[in-house]
């Protein structure tokens, strides 16, 4: 009897090892099906039906490719996304390089301010940019006064590229920096001993080793810009795919299936882009077994070099923080109309904003915090399953999760209403769709791709042999993951949490469909309330500044905590 029980407990132990990943995979799949696939499918099946007869058809897709307008939109979206990656790289590369290569006090500045552009609340970013760089914005008013000409910074696709790359370059900065920090110093030292220095060292050793982070960031920027709706809409650029989809889905009365057709095409293109970026990494091993030295060795700078670095950093920060500077001016200005600076300054707007802000702030921190936590957990699990197990179809979890990036917020919002409105919350009897938790899930689903890319980039740099070593020493799988893999991935996890949290805090398009009562509304929604009227612009901007500061601080502290834990861990590891 005793022997039997031992056998059975063995068996169950053995089962747990192989069943664990499968259960996790099924759980994740269930989440994705319930909160992404089903709601979206319920909305976009229209794309596959004939509007006249209601039968299944692909005619709508033929219409898409036959239409000159849609082909042009397709091209424009592609062009804007590609150019945004290029420009975002121009912003991010020097900043990432300087922080990771040199002992430079400005590095703190970069790390602190580098992710701030991600926290750009809806509506006001574009308003602020127009006030500064628009056809009649501060810069052009000065140019017209002094030199009699103006520059079209914000016209058409150029404006979209500029605003997008400013907004999303932190994806590259954060992921690339995380990657650079993860490179083992010994790799660099070996190269130096073998006689490689300077640019050659950077090109042949550092850059390739940092590639997972760069690709993760760049592909996020590409897909995000390709699918982004807010910026083109606010700059009134209509000839791109996402605005075309949105304009057709949300006009009153008309039910043209083309909006949903475009959504399907956006989703397919995003999955394709992710597949390309993942394939580009395939067959290359970026992991290093030693994790001794926290990143590349840093060099001290001469006085002239320091000045040069500061110049580059400050110039770049001035560009990427321009929307926030505009926002700040807007929030403390009285009337700002066709002038270089506001007519006067006041603190009144803050008094109005603070009065209403607290419930919004509380909701935002709660929602974005939980959503980002869910994202990091799911992101790590998906990344681990995709990279370290042999489950069939494991990569598809990754692709499906990434597809969330391409789902317009409106589509997800309508899908949630459709799917969850008829479901009641136990005990209260209120519809599930009106529960604030559903907003959290919507945010988590929409921001999962950010965390996922960071997590899988981080995992790619951890060598499986470290896990094998741990397992050889008798540690069970879960413990290996917890004690070995997760600590080594910490930088990537923080990057994932930061991007998910900061962007979830300013999400509006799905939220606005799901907010059922003002007491449950997050900050972005509060901003929306203000930004609908002339008198509300100042207080709206003030609320925007409050949002940026609070989300910024929260993100900073989260990062700080994890960094501290990491340092302590590596210090204790070093003392052994």
């Amino acid at each position, binding site marked *: 009897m005793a022997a039997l029980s031992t056998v059975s407990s063995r068996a169950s132990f053995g089962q747990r090892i192989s069943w664990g990943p499968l259960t996790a995979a099924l759980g994740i799949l269930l989440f994705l099906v319930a909160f992404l696939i089903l709601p979206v499918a319920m909305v976009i099946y*229209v794309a596959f*039906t*004939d*509007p*006249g007869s*209601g039968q299944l058809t692909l005619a*709508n897709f033929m*219409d898409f490719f*036959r*239409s*000159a307008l849609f082909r042009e939109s397709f091209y424009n979206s592609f062009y804007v996304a590609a150019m945004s990656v290029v420009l975002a790289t121009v912003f991010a590369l020097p900043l990432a390089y300087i922080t990771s290569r040199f002992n430079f006090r400005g590095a703190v500045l970069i790390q602190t301010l580098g992710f701030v552009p991600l926290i750009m609340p809806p509506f006001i970013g574009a308003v602020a940019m*127009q006030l500064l760089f628009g*056809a*009649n*914005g501060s810069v052009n008013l000065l140019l017209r006064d002094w030199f009699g000409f103006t520059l079209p910074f914000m016209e*058409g696709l150029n404006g979209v590229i500029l605003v997008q790359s400013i907004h999303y370059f932190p994806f590259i900065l954060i992921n690339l920096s995380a990657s650079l920090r993860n490179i083992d110093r010994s790799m660099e030292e070996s190269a130096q001993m073998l006689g490689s220095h300077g640019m050659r060292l950077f090109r042949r050793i550092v850059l390739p080793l940092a590639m997972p982070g760069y690709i993760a960031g760049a592909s996020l920027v590409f897909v995000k810009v390709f699918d982004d709706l807010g910026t083109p*809409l*606010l700059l*009134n650029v*209509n*000839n791109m795919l996402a605005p075309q989809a949105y*304009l057709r889905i*949300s*006009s*009153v*009365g*008309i*039910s*043209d*299936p*083309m909006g949903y057709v475009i959504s399907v095409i956006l989703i397919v293109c995003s999955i394709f882009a992710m597949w390309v970026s993942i394939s580009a990494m395939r067959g290359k091993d970026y992991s290093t077994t030693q994790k001794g030295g926290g990143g590349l060795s840093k060099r001290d700078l001469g006085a002239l070099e320091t000045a040069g670095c500061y110049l580059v950093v400050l110039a770049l920060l001035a560009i990427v923080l321009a929307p926030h500077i505009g926002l700040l001016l807007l929030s403390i200005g009285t*009337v*700002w*109309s*066709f*002038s270089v600076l506001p007519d006067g300054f006041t603190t009144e707007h803050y008094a109005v904003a603070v009065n*209403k802000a607290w419930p919004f702030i509380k909701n935002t921190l709660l929602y974005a915090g939980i959503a980002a936590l869910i994202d990091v957990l799911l992101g790590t699990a998906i990344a681990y399953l995709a990279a370290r197990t042999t489950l069939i179809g494991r990569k598809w979890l990754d692709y499906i999760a990434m597809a969330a990036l391409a789902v317009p917020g409106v589509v997800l919002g*309508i899908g949630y*209403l459709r799917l969850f*409105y*008829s479901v009641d919350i136990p005990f209260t009897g*209120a*519809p599930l*769709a009106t529960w604030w938790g559903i907003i959290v899930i919507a945010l988590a689903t929409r921001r999962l791709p950010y965390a996922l890319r960071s997590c899988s980039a981080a995992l790619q740099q951890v060598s499986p042999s470290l896990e094998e070593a741990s397992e050889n020493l008798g540690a069970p799988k879960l413990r290996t993951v917890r004690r070995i893999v997760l600590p080594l991935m910490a930088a990537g996890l923080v990057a994932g949490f930061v991007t998910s949290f900061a962007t979830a805090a300013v999400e509006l398009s799905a939220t*606005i*469909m799901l*907010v059922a*009562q*003002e*007491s449950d509304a997050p900050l972005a*929604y509060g901003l929306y*309330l*203000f*930004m*609908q*009227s*002339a*008198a*509300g*612009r100042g207080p709206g901007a003030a609320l925007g500044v409050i949002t940026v500061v609070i989300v910024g601080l929260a993100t900073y502290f989260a990062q700080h905590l994890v960094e501290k834990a990491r340092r302590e861990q590596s210090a204790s590891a070093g003392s052994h």
Partner: protein
Amino acid sequence: MSSFALKAAAGAAALFASVSMTTLAAASDKLTIVTSYPADVTDVYKSAFEQANPGVTVEVVNKSTSSGVKFLKETASNNSADIFWASAPDAFEVLKGDGLLVKYTSSVEGLPEKIGAYPINDPDGFYTGFALSGYGIMWNTRYAQSYDLEPAKQWSDLTKAQYFGHVGISSPSRSGTTHLTIETILQGEGWEKGWEQIKWIGGNSYTITERSFGVPDGVNTGSFGFGVVIDFFGFSSRSSGFPVDFVYPDVTALVPANVGVVTNAPNEDNARKFVDFLLSAKGQELLLDPKIMRLPVNPEAYANAPEGFPNPFVGDTIKASVSFDSDASKAHYNAVNALFDSMITYRHKELAAAVKAIHEAEAAVGEGGSQAAKDLIKEARALVAWTPVDLETANDPAFGAIFTTKRKSEDDKSSGRQAEVEQEWDARIVENYAKAVDLAEKAKSAN
């Protein structure tokens, strides 16, 4: 809950007992309003209504008009909203058509039935007008001065060469109020001439904004100087201190902004009270709040209006030469949206190029130019003015069917798909605009 509210609720319950069985439950302490109005408007009414009805908490759910309509549609099976409160009568027509509003005739008496020939309330009683809106031109005075532009007083002024690149307008498919403006021009000027005028305004525009508020916002910041807006945007911006002004052109109409009680409202009794409150002397007076600035439907409310505030019931500050025909509007509602987007929103760059080329050619040729050059310009103008469908087709229900996938039964079939039709239009429109540029350039060199 205070005894006053209980008494009031009990009284109301007795009053409406015959209408609804839910009235006892409706003596509740909540009221949920779905609205497109900004916090500036809703805050004022929320606190005033709560003060007038102690114990009742007003919950405001703010959504754009179109997402508000979608929200009510999607949530009808388990409705939590009591009131729908927005400007565009079209949205209320859509809700009424889908059975999402219930009839309610306010107990407030002594209000006019009509403004001009337009009924202020829904003749069937499903929604009630509480304020009036006219459409006009708003401009930034600093901008106009800097670019040395006269304030435009009529729609036709906005088509002139000197305003090229200085105008802003929204799209009727995005903004219910812009739809009303476009429809007013089409009714006032006639289909062909109206579209021609609209296209020249579109071509002169710096941008076509995605939402109604984008236009006043652009004028306020000075992104562009002149905007086609609904009146209260102009008035409230001015009273907020922006250097802007507003004028009603002769071709304008006064259309009510509305409120309606939602079907199966959980707090139907409070919803009715809210409608009554909006129409009461107090509720009408609040419309004159500097941040709101809407025209009350009660003529007596104008007694306390600030100076310069127009009164549509006396004098002729608002000529309102068009008496808006909402049946005519409904007949080609979707067609107008689709036409505007095809000809102007999606081809704004091409249209602006054509309009610019013709402006330049006209300046070069002038009054004394050769007949050949003038003929070329005329031809170019005709190409810009070309509209894919005439009024008769636009009003044809068979044609209108391509814009809706809602089929009444499985056997219903409509011919053609919107995308197919729009692609045909688009090809011709792009070709026309390109040809217009060529002709205008020829005219310049032929002179």
